């Protein structure tokens, strides 16, 4: 199970809003290699892991990714708080996000495509899964 701790892993305190940057960073939340995908990938793959080291690693890293997800969401939230109408309109990339979600946090690619489990794999095969992790995250530990 999971227990929530009311703090982020790393401080996020942004003063100046930047909707354009937010429209890019959202992909790290719900994009093809974002934190949501990373946590789902590790936390799903662990059930087929035969080795204690890999069970532990996937559980612990998958859990940490949930914390990363929260930080990225906080970044996007703070980059888009207190926006003026003009700031929204002069950023076409963010404007299209705004039409669908206003300043709500929604897991999507930078292109606007919603987060999809089709960007991850869970094969039940140790080597295949670990190789997929390497490709997705650049590292497994």
């Amino acid at each position, binding site marked *: 199970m999971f*227990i*929530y*701790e*009311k*703090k*982020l*892993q*790393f*401080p*996020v*305190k*942004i*003063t100046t809003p930047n909707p354009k940057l937010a429209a890019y960073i959202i992909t790290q939340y719900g994009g093809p290699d974002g934190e949501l995908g990373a946590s789902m990938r590790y936390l799903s793959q662990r059930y087929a892991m035969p080795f204690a*080291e890999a069970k*532990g*690693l996937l559980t*612990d*890293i998958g859990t*940490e990714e949930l914390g990363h997800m*929260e930080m990225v*969401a*906080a970044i996007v*939230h*703070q980059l888009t708080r207190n926006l003026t109408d003009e700031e929204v309109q002069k950023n076409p990339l963010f404007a299209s996000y705004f039409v669908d979600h206003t300043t709500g946090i929604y897991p999507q690619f930078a292109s606007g495509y919603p987060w999809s489990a089709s960007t991850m794999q869970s094969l039940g095969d140790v080597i295949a899964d670990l*190789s997929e992790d*390497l490709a997705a995250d650049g*590292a497994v*530990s």
Partner: protein
Amino acid sequence: MNKENGGTRPSCPDHYGTLPSCAGLAVPYVPFQQDNPQKYSQNDALSNGTLFPGLNLPFHLKVEGSALPSNPLVELQAIEFVVLELGTYLDTHPDDTEAFEMFKQYAAMEKSAKAAYEERFGPLTRSCAANCDKYSWLKDPWPWNYQQNEVK
């Protein structure tokens, strides 16, 4: 195969454009982190995003940790990050006794730092809210609501 150099194997098995009969399809190689690796201080670890200099792959070859503010929350975050990193390391190196000793030491520091933080600023977990005079779990700020210069 191998006739022209007297039957000895060529230095490269793929010399003639064919693989040896017993070859596997592919051999991936991932360098394995060695026991007893060098470690950063807790603040350098948090600002670099890793406890281990050996795993720090600088973006565009530029080594620069972010400048951390100095406040009670960051101090707690730095200690917790060391516990987290050592835990992940121990998952794959459970027999590194030195790392385990450090893990125990930092876990104890985390426990007291967390208690001291909660004493001053309110509960970090909902069950800890039971230690307060009244239900203070809902007290602002929530973690994503911190303002730039808010000290906590």
